[in-house]
């Protein structure tokens, strides 16, 4: 399959920060069904996520993600803190960060946007709805939206 962003052969790097293996697998299935060019990286908690993003230790060669899918309730360092650190970082803050969580609490929504989340999505209960949501993430963020590093990459 060809990436629909126009850059043939270039993988799309997505970081999924999610502690539930079931959700990881489900998201993986849905993303790959939507777009075969997606190269999905998984962090199971907030600390792992930050290590990946800042290329600490074994992550030295980790790619810079095009998109981050971030759950809120995570062990060690929760999603809000990860979000705050990403948005406080000069180089990381330009990466679109989407909150993908089971919560639909108003407090979580407000807090996430205050921390500069690019989007807040609640995981639908039905599989079909979830697949549809993931597809729309791909369609909008990874296909239609112009992202800074892609433009950068396009120039090189």
């Amino acid at each position: 399959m060809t990436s629909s962003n126009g850059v043939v052969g270039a993988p799309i790097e997505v970081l999924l920060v999610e502690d539930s293996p079931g959700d990881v697998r489900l998201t993986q299935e849905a993303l790959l069904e939507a777009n075969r060019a997606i190269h999905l990286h998984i962090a199971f908690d907030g600390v792992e996520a930050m290590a990946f993003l800042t290329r600490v230790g074994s992550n030295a060669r980790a790619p810079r993600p095009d998109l981050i899918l971030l759950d809120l309730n995570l062990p060690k360092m929760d999603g809000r803190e990860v979000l705050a650190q990403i948005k406080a970082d000069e180089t990381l803050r330009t990466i679109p960060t989407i909150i993908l969580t089971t919560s639909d609490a108003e407090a979580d929504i407000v807090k996430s946007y205050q921390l500069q989340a690019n989007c807040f999505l609640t995981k639908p209960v039905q599989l079909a709805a979830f697949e549809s949501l993931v597809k729309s993430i791909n369609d909008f963020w990874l296909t239609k939206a112009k992202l800074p590093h892609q433009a950068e990459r396009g120039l090189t």
Partner: protein
Amino acid sequence: MIEGRYRELLEAAPDSMVLVNESGQIVLLNHQAEKQFGYDRGELLGQPVRSIIPVGFAERLIADGTRNAEQALAQQIGTGIELAARRKDGSEFPIEIMLSPLKNDKGVLVAAAIRDISVRREAEIHLVQMEARYRGLLEAAPDAMVVVNQGGEIVLLNVQAEKQFGYSRDELLGLQVRTIIPEGFAERLITDGTRTAAEALAQQIGTGIELIGRRKDASGFPIEIMLSPLPSADGILVTAAIRDITERKEAEKHLAQMESRYRGLLEAAPDAMVLMNTDGGIVLLNLQAEKQFQYHRDELAGRPLRTIIPEVWTIIADVKQRIAGALRSAGNSKAQEIGAGIEFNGRRKDNSDFPIEVTLSILQTAEGVLVTVAIRDITTRKKAEAQLLQTMQELNRSNEELGQFAYIASHDLQEPLRMVASYTQLLSKRYKGKLDGDADQFIAFAVDGANRMQLLIQDLLAYSRIGTKGSELLTTSSENALERAIVNLAGAIEDSGALVTHDLLPSVLADQRQLVQLFQNLVGNAIKYQGAGVPRIHVSCNRSAGAKWLFSVQDNGLGIEAKYFERIFGMFQRLHKREEFAGTGIGLAICKKIVERHGGEISVESQLGHGSTFRFALPESSAI
């Protein structure tokens, strides 16, 4: 001659007697005179009276230029003249003489009755000493005080005694105490056969004896006397503290009158009742009050009300003001309530407190304004209230806990269930038709079960959120809420071709989201439970009692049998098979809970086959 005529007379007299002629010579004397002066009769007869009474007697007998002897004498008659007498041995002693003229053929003789007053003089001197000693003490006493000797004579007194009895000090000194206290005091001083004066007195010491005092003007007044012994050189004297108890007696009389007038009234009352004057003093109380506060009525009459209601001072000023106000505006009404249901602590004699509720009313009487204080022991009520409050709190807490539990349970159940549902669905999607027929059926049941469970949990969550996640009730346009619900139902309305109409709808006090949900559930049900025809739904609103709006959602749907009217509002209650109509049966339970949270009730009126009307009331918006 003279002797013959007067001798017997003279000898009968208790005092010394001498008869003197106009020249001052003794012409006759009695035996007592011989003894008193230490002469024999013969030695004195014919002698000038000057030899036994050197100064002050003979002079009075002598005519001077301006008057004759008779005139001179007349001036002295009947008067006790105090002089000094001289015995034969030259010693002198104080006397008092009384003169009276005796006319005979030889002219005028003067009879002198001579009394030795040594004892009295001494007593007087003693008195002066006593006075000096006790005066300060006596005058310091608030009551009238008299000191009486065993002869019943007043020997000492204070200013209060003078004032009280209307006598001057000099008039009272030496006076029989019987004169100012005619009965009941002097008797007590007197020894009888069985006891000495000291013993008799001892029995009376310290006791308040109520007697009648008599003033100089003969008017009587009630007194209370307290006796105490005062040993002195002359034996035991008695000090009497005399208190004028006119006022107390008046008060007692007044009380007796009041009692006879209001007692029946007070005793008829089921509560403790106290009559209070405007100064906060207790005038009268009933048996219930005695029992409740454990006092005898005599212990409370005249005492301030705060004795039994310590905090009453907090309202006394207010009560006075209200009395004044009530009297101004009162007119003819005799009893006026000036305070009701005021809660205090009552205090019993043993200092234990108990909760009371007090009602105050003005009682205008011939004696002036009184306040009736009706006191109800509310111990039982308070206990019941406390218990009720506790039960309510426990109930609230348990309700809250239950709500929290339902919320948390349903919220947390959702996560694993989402996994079950998602993966059974994924299984179905990927492997349908790739395994055998049984596998397809099993997977289908699993998917269906997971889906139904998801709906139940979502509904349960929605239901529990009404209580736990509700917003404040604010002024909300019910029309806007209905419009929003209609928008949310757009799909169903389009599919069914339903016609949803409504009147002008008012603003109400509501949680907007819940109001939308309420309309959405009711209108949604009306569309869903429909026969073959086009659903017609009309929402209207009328004013109802108690500042509420009564909403009606009327449909032309299937209708409901009357026996199900109650049941349909219960949790997970369904009237139809799942194959006929989908749903968990929680929609109306949510409606009921929303309406109840807004302080209203929801009901249904329906007939099978003739549509249904759901009615609910919402509070009027105060902003209107």
